[in-house]
């Protein structure tokens, strides 16, 4: 059986779209820095070809022979890099706002965390398939016991990513992936809900212990409140309402951009809010920029393509016989889905914004190559699945 053609095509469409976006959304940045008009397009094209190359090459390999070495290389390689990064000289590691996220290799900056995500998912899949199995009513306590080693590994990784790299968005995505993979690996629902409850209360405590986090939640709520409070009776709504203070700069601009786009969009290259109002419009706010120029229709198109892609990935998972392949495919599908959702929920003002890029669409090499490894490996696995 060959690799899944549909999945390959869908990812290629998203990657192709990202090249267009890297041209139209970078107008302001290009003018500001006075760089070449095609500066970002050329780079993004290189990433795109590399990405597609990786996906294609991986899809041709034999999963029984190659999946394990590649998975472990990604996991341990990027983990070692992330641990070493705080100690590497500044000429190799670039620091932005106190966070050391990128390593310079041959003129390009790479973020190891993007590759770590794929490696982490593989590691979990491999390990769960050997150790976890169905819970068979073993009781909550025993389930916690067998989960403990993973919690330790996760907390270690979280420490590196959240505190040394200050990248909370990635932690959210990784945590959500881990949690859902547990279910698919055979944990009980009760266990899942207990952990979910634990995380939820930890987050609440985390927020309530710092003034600036409460403020951030408040400023997000001042934007989001109207659509929610309309549904509630007045007496309750009035209690929950907070005054709209200075509109948070990024959310305000992102909502305006989406609104400005309307149903059909302003048309390619005609956006207004990309011109110096939406910060990071070609990376973290790419969906807002897309919604402005291609409208609701454009965004809907991307969502449909993305969901179709996810559906293919989950189908691969469903059809492979090997548990580790099954769990790995699900994990990759989940990371992609959560990345997209965390970003899209942020820019549409449903949740507070977390800096995380959209898989395949955002400008940037590391995320593109990392995600390509993930999908490429799923394609490799798909050769063992009957996709008909």
């Amino acid at each position, binding site marked *: 059986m060959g690799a899944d053609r549909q999945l390959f095509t869908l990812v290629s469409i998203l990657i192709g779209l990202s090249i267009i976006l890297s041209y139209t959304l970078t107008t302001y*940045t290009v003018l500001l*820095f006075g760089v070449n008009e095609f500066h970002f397009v050329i780079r993004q094209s290189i990433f795109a070809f590399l990405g597609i190359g990786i996906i294609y090459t991986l899809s041709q390999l034999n999963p029984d022979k190659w999946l394990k070495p590649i998975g472990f290389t990604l996991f341990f390689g990027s983990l070692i890099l992330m641990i070493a990064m705080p100690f590497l000289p500044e000429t190799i590691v670039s620091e932005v706002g106190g966070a050391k996220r990128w390593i310079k290799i041959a003129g390009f900056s790479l973020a190891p965390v993007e590759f770590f995500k794929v490696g982490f998912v593989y590691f979990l899949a491999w390990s769960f398939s050997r150790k976890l199995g169905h819970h068979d009513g073993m009781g909550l306590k025993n389930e916690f016991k067998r989960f403990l080693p993973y919690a330790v590994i996760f907390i270690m990784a979280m420490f590196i990513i959240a505190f040394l790299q200050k990248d909370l968005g990635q932690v959210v995505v990784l945590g959500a992936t881990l949690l859902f993979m547990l279910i698919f690996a055979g944990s009980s629902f009760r266990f899942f809900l207990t952990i979910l409850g634990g995380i939820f209360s930890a987050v609440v405590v985390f927020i309530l212990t710092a003034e600036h986090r409460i403020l951030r939640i408040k400023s997000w709520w001042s934007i989001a409140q109207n659509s929610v409070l309309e549904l509630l009776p007045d007496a309750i709504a009035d209690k929950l309402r907070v005054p709209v203070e200075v509109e948070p700069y990024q959310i305000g601009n992102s909502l305006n951009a989406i609104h400005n786009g309307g149903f059909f969009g302003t048309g390619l290259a005609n956006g207004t809010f990309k011109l*110096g109002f939406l*910060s990071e419009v070609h990376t973290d706010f790419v969906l807002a920029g897309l919604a402005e120029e291609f409208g*609701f229709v454009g965004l809907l198109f991307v969502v449909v393509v993305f969901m179709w892609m996810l559906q293919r990935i989950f189908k691969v998972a469903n059809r492979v016989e090997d548990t580790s392949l099954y769990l790995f495919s699900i994990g990759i599908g989940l990371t992609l889905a959560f990345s997209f959702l965390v970003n*899209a929920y942020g820019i549409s*003002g449903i949740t507070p914004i977390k800096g995380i890029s959209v898989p395949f669409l955002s400008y940037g090499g590391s995320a593109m190559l990392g995600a390509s490894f993930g999908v490429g490996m799923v394609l490799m696995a798909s050769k063992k699945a009957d996709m008909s």
Partner: protein
Amino acid sequence: MKVKFIILLFASVWLALIVRVFFLAVESNIYYSKLSIKNTIKHEKIAPVRGEIVDVKNRPIAINKLGFKIQLAPHLLTKKHKNEFEEEVALLTKLLPSLDRKKIVKNYRKKDSFYNHNFIDVVQFIPYEEMMPIYSILNLRENMKIVPAPKRYYPYKNIAAHMIGYVARANKKDIDKNPVLELIGYTGKTGIENYYNNYLQGIPGEREIKVNANNQEIEELYYKSPQEDTKLTLNMDIELQKYISALFLGKVGAFVVMKTDGSILAAGSFPNYDLNIFVSGMSYKMYNKLASSLDHPFTNKLTHGLYPPGSSIKPLLGLLYITTKLSDKWSVDCRSNLRIANRTFRCWKERGHHHTDIVKAIRESCDDYFYKGSLILGNQMMSEGLKRYGFGKKTGIDMPNEFIGVVPSRLWKLRKYNRSWNIGETANMSIGQGDFLVTPLQIARETALIATGKLITPHFAKYIGDEPYKIEYKDILTPLEKRKLPVIRKAMIQVCNSPHGTATQYLHSKVRIAGKTGTAQVIGIKQDIEKRRLEHELSYYNRSHAWFTSYGPTRKPQYIVTVMIEHGGHGGHAAGSIVSDIYNKLLELGYIKKR
């Protein structure tokens, strides 16, 4: 089941996203119409000019100097515009040589981002006279904006610095508390400037203008001028203040001169600093030097300095003694050494005072009398009485966050140290030592209580705008206490006038005054050692704090003068001369008519 549930969860999450975006993009036309109104009608707030502070004779203490700030266009640091930026900075430093190039670049970098489209403040203040000759040159430059900006100015610099306080740029915390500051930009940080900030800052004005597509003003729709005639008149006499500050030269401490109704004529804390330095921000080096000084120049010692009161507490404690368990005939035989719970408590006088009653005990500051009295009253009665007189509580002065001090008691010690009270502490407390802590302002207020029989509220403000400050008294003394006050007053008069008074020999006041000296120990000196150590034998930071609190003239008390000198040694010796000079100056300035 599990899988179905997850699929359902997943689907609803995605659906929510699509619905939300649909609403944002298509349905919410309200947002858009609001936006268009926002675009045609511009709502602007007009910052008020801060009110001025003047002294009792209308001399300006805090005023606003007219000047300008300089702003530069954003995004000039990119490769393309780098030359323009250098050109502007070079022009500025050429025309205004006092400017620091590094500071301009630093200010600019701090605020410049790709997504900031507003002009950036690079120079906070250029005085009017300096700006005038070059205004026409700078005003023509496209990348530069010259904006009028008033700046707080304190013409008397370091005189009464702690009392007046200063304004400085409002930080995020200030703005959270008081949103108007976002517009005004600076706020009163300490002293009177802080306490009356909400009044002094005024109320912003507003205006609404119609603009065309190019953001140019077409017409004014509405105008409300800011409310800014917010003047504050103080009871302070800045000339008197200046005179007294000179007396404190080289000394560390605090003083207050106030009327018996609580109006403060002069008050100070030393060492002090030039207020104007804070308005424009001081260098780290200077700040660190001031902040780490052992003389604590940043502390307002009048309201925030906590000291043991020493013997200055005796008149009030004496009043408590003779109105509770003791009569004013009660006396002791002071032999200088008293043993309480295996510790020796010594009176300051080596040979002892022998037969001592209340008047003599205050006049000659006999410790033995107060030790023995305290054992009869007990700690609870003492601490309750002192609290009723106003210790351990705020005085109510119009200054921010005054300290309340400590009146130690059995319960207090249990709560704070989880240790039981011992009787030696009661004795120690009776001479104003141990854990008993007060601010100089509290001592002044208690002196007023003895002089007038009323508990006053010390205050700086005389008029807030046209509104006179409401003077308040508290009647806290019992009828018995009021009847016995003359006994205490007599003793305090003798302190300053009788040949045996502890202060008499140090005074040269032309006004007849009454008072009490105090020498508050900083370190515990072992009571058992054979040789008594003299103050000048101790190193500076181990020397006692010197107190002198007084009222005058004695016939009809008009003024309270309280002086505290850190490590000054003996109260009368260190502060007597200053107190005399203050009364003589009050006489000279006509504040006191009858001696």
